[in-house]
């Protein structure tokens, strides 16, 4: 009998309870999806890194020679004095190259005895007749050893191993042919490298594993193949790697070591995008899923608590009678608990099941970007328990607490309950602030504050959702700012790097030269210096107001936005930049809206003089053109449209993830408003009836009962704006500090207006049912039914 009456009560609340069910489902779903997806990557990735000796750190070095090395080369290898890069020395004199590199390695190991170094050599090449790129990495012996996922390692000069995802996306099977630089290679295996699990080929975050791959060929073939070559050292601790100790004893110490002046940068793996971003992504993904689920669960738990409290309070008379009749507390409580269990358990299980199913897709999405071994997703007891049992314990525990508290009252008190409603301190406080307001206005904006618990849930719920909405808005145009805006702003279509071991090429009409020096130093950090002509036509620089500021190069240098954000430098500031051993004092004459790399633009002639030690003001190592450039004439030729095409995947990925986040946020907000406003109308049933009887119109009653939700929703949103901006700043700082990466999230005032509109729409949808309920409250109710 008793369960039947409780069931009837719950039936009347079916829509509210279903809405809570959706929130419960979402919390379990998000947690399960993310945790399964991430843990299916984490385990195999850790094993892969350990088995293949992933580097603990990497050492970037100047591509030129130090004074000491130049003297060594002149006296031992009889080369002429001049400017040399490691790339051209390797081409001209391999013995000298390896001798210099060996000396560099030796000097490091002598100074820091607990660590080993190994040279990493790689070449970036365009795949024939396509906009695809391949990074051929020379096989290492001790650190960052390649892993063959399928097939075998190349053993002859016409064999190659590539990434499995590239092969899959381009329909390349084992033993198929792949043409690179006019030569056909047989694909004999699928390869992974532990130091390139995020295949970043440049400083821009363009990752499309369908258009770029990592490759492994024989050592001999590596040397034969033509491409833009780069070097760095991979490092590994002889014992267990201690990040903090390494930072203290090596990273901070190396700048004081004169013998190690060839080093431009030392980065531990955890702070290295190409090898360590996965650690942060796993950590961040776990934190985000846990945080989001926790927040969503908390909202669900609080709403459930409110509903149960209201239900039991509204039935206190009935419960009082039951107690008076001799029913025990347990007999009365059990049907409530069973019904709460009946709603939450299926939703949690459904969320878990749907989460496990979708985790495969999320894992695959991760594998679109990360080059990691994939495994099947296995059921994990801990995830199961955390996704289902933990929230369930909270739901039941909290419900029990509320029920126990209500049932602890005497039957007589329960029968009398609800006669008088006290006024909360918050209500009184706001009432005082609104001292001179009309009573109608006061009623409108204070009655919601009378139930502090409900108001808290509502306010926090909307604030949480608002933060997500603000975040969505702040990421608007993120990828455009990071990559596409830059390429869309420049007028060149092709960009070539010059082989400086050969005489500089003669430029055709319409072609423009530039000089890029990636080893500049500012405050011990490596920065890029780029020389362009102040009156050039193909690479104009624009500020944040889209004004052409290229001509400012006559007055000083132009820093890019990343440089400005990282070092907080403004126009008019002086900066000291080091090129090789020489320091130059530069004045900032402009900030251009560009986010790739930390870059300083200078007049080409000046940079040429600095790089060539005043020997030439006409040196350049790159060419821009609107017309296609001859690939045989240059080391590499990049097509702007190819880069933009490559950026599309990342752009779509960012766009859709953000849309998904926004949809989840909006659904939660609608549910929160829907439940709380309908509860309010139910609670204020008699007040609504009274106001209507008195002669207030439906519109006026709607405004009196619901408008406060609108005002406080907007208030909650406005409170969340600085919180969201604070989180954004922290995140930006974290990424700059830990990954040297600028994430140009942007806060603009229009976002606040857009947010207000979104909140208004959420309010409109979320309160539709409450409005309908208000219009249905009968006038006679106030006469017929009296509160018990």
């Amino acid at each position, binding site marked *: 009998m008793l369960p039947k009456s409780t069931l009837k009560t719950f039936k009347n609340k079916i829509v509210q309870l279903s809405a809570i069910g959706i929130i419960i489902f979402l919390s379990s779903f998000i947690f399960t999806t993310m945790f399964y997806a991430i843990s299916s990557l984490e385990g195999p990735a850790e094993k892969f890194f350990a088995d293949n000796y992933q580097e603990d750190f990497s050492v970037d070095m100047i591509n030129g020679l130090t004074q000491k090395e130049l003297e060594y080369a002149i006296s031992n290898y009889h080369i002429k004095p001049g400017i040399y890069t490691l790339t051209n020395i390797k081409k001209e004199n391999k013995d000298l190259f390896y001798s210099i590199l060996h000396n560099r390695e030796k000097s490091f190991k002598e100074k820091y005895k607990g660590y080993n170094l190994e040279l990493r050599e790689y070449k970036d090449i365009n795949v024939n007749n396509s906009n695809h790129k391949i990074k051929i990495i020379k096989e290492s012996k001790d650190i960052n050893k390649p892993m063959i996922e399928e097939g075998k390692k190349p053993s002859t000069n016409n064999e190659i191993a590539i990434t499995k995802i590239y092969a899959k996306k381009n329909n390349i099977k084992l033993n198929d042919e792949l043409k690179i630089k006019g030569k056909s290679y047989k694909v004999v295996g699928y390869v992974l490298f532990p130091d390139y699990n995020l295949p970043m080929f440049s400083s821009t975050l363009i990752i499309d594993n369908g258009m770029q791959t990592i490759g492994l060929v024989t050592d001999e073939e590596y040397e034969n193949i033509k491409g833009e070559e780069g070097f760095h050292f991979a490092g590994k601790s002889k014992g267990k790697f201690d990040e903090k100790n390494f930072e203290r004893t090596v990273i901070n110490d190396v700048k004081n070591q004169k013998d190690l002046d060839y080093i431009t940068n030392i980065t531990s793996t955890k702070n290295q995008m190409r090898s360590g971003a996965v650690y942060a992504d796993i950590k961040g993904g776990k934190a985000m899923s846990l945080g989001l689920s926790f927040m969503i669960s908390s909202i669900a738990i609080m709403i459930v608590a409110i509903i149960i409290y209201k239900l039991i309070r509204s039935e206190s008379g009935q419960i009082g009678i039951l107690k008076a009749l001799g029913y025990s507390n347990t007999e009365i409580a059990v049907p409530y608990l069973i019904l709460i269990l009946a709603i939450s358990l299926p939703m949690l299980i459904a969320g878990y099941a749907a989460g496990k199913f979708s985790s495969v897709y999320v894992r695959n999405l991760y594998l679109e970007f990360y080059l990691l071994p994939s495994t099947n997703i296995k059921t994990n007891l801990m995830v199961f328990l955390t996704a289902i049992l933990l929230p369930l314990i909270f739901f039941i525990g909290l419900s029990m607490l509320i029920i126990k508290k209500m049932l602890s009252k005497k039957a007589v008190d329960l029968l009398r309950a609800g006669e008088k409603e006290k006024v909360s301190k918050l209500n009184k406080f706001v009432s005082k602030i609104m001292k001179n307001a009309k*009573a109608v206005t006061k009623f409108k904006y*204070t009655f919601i504050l009378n139930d502090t618990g409900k108001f808290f849930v509502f306010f926090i719920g909307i604030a949480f959702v608002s933060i997500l909405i603000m975040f969505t808005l702040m990421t608007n145009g993120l990828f455009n700012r990071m990559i596409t805006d830059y390429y869309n702003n420049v007028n060149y279509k092709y960009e070539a790097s010059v082989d400086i071991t050969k005489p500089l090429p003669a430029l055709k009409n319409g072609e423009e030269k530039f000089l890029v020096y990636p080893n500049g130093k500012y405050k011990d950090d490596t920065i890029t210096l780029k020389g362009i002509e102040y009156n050039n036509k193909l690479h104009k620089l624009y500020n944040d107001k889209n004004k052409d500021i290229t001509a400012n190069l006559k007055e000083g240098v132009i820093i890019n936005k990343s440089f400005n954000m990282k070092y907080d430098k403004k126009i008019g500031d002086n900066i000291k930049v080091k090129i090789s051993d020489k320091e130059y004092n530069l004045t900032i004459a402009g900030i251009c809206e560009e986010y790739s790399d930390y870059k300083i633009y200078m007049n080409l002639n000046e940079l040429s003089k600095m790089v060539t030690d005043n020997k030439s003001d006409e040196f350049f190592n790159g060419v821009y053109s609107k017309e296609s450039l001859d690939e045989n004439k240059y080391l590499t030729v990049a097509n702007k449209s190819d880069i933009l095409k490559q950026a599309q995947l990342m752009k779509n990925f960012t766009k859709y993830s953000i849309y998904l986040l926004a949809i989840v946020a909006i659904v939660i907000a609608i549910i929160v408003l829907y439940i709380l406003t309908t509860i309010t109308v139910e609670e204020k049933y008699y007040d609504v009836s009274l106001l209507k009887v008195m002669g207030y119109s439906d519109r006026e009653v709607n405004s009196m009962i619901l408008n406060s939700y609108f005002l406080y929703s907007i208030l909650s949103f406005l409170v969340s704006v600085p919180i969201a901006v604070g989180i954004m700043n922290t995140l930006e700082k974290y990424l700059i500090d830990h990954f040297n990466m600028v994430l140009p999230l942007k806060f603009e005032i229009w976002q606040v207006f857009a947010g207000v509109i979104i909140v208004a729409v959420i309010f409109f949808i979320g309160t539709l049912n409450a409005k309908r309920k208000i219009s249905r409250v009968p006038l006679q109710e106030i006469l017929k039914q009296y509160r018990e």
Partner: protein
Amino acid sequence: MRELSIILKNVNKIYKTGDIETYALKNISLEIKQGEFLVILGPSGSGKSTLLNVISGLDNPTSGEISYNDEIISNYDSKKLTKFRRDNLGFTFQQYNLLQNLTVRENIEIGAAIGKNPFSIDEIIQKVGIESEKDKYPYQLSGGQQQRVSIARSIAKNPNILFCDEPTGALDEATGKQVLDVLQKMNKEFKTTTVVITHNPNIALMADRVMKMNSGRIEEIVKNEFKKNAFEINWG
């Protein structure tokens, strides 16, 4: 002097349950005069509240005609009825239905806010004798005080007619008499037509006229030759 009359002609209210028709009101004809204190008396289920609903425009009659100052209101739609109530009527119920988050004064203001020609709030507060309670919240008041606030709220907008449904139903004798005294005072001083519904025959002694109802019909309408004041009546 306000001119007022409410005229009911052959008013019926029928509730249907399947094929069964139940007459809640049967052939009611009545005229309520301006400034009158009318008590509608009858046992539970006699149709008192239904009558109040239809007179006050809270419900439409099944048949018959209700006019207010020659304007037929029984055909009004809900919007027009709302306006009619807003401009002309005040209500007091057995339960006080005060807005819990507003003070006494603010509750009265809510009533006055929709009146075309409302009374001064302070004057009303003083008339109902709750000056010292004006800044208190409903939970801080006794039942009698709350009912006085409820009356003050209904009267504050200066309605032409005040409907009171069992206004003393939840009160003890002493407080009940105080509340009736307030109603009588309002009727006298403001000439507000007052219709009180009660099952307590003693209250009928305060009325100008008493209408007795039973089974949805008017049993009789009696004019009181010697009206008593609230404190002179016996309670039960």
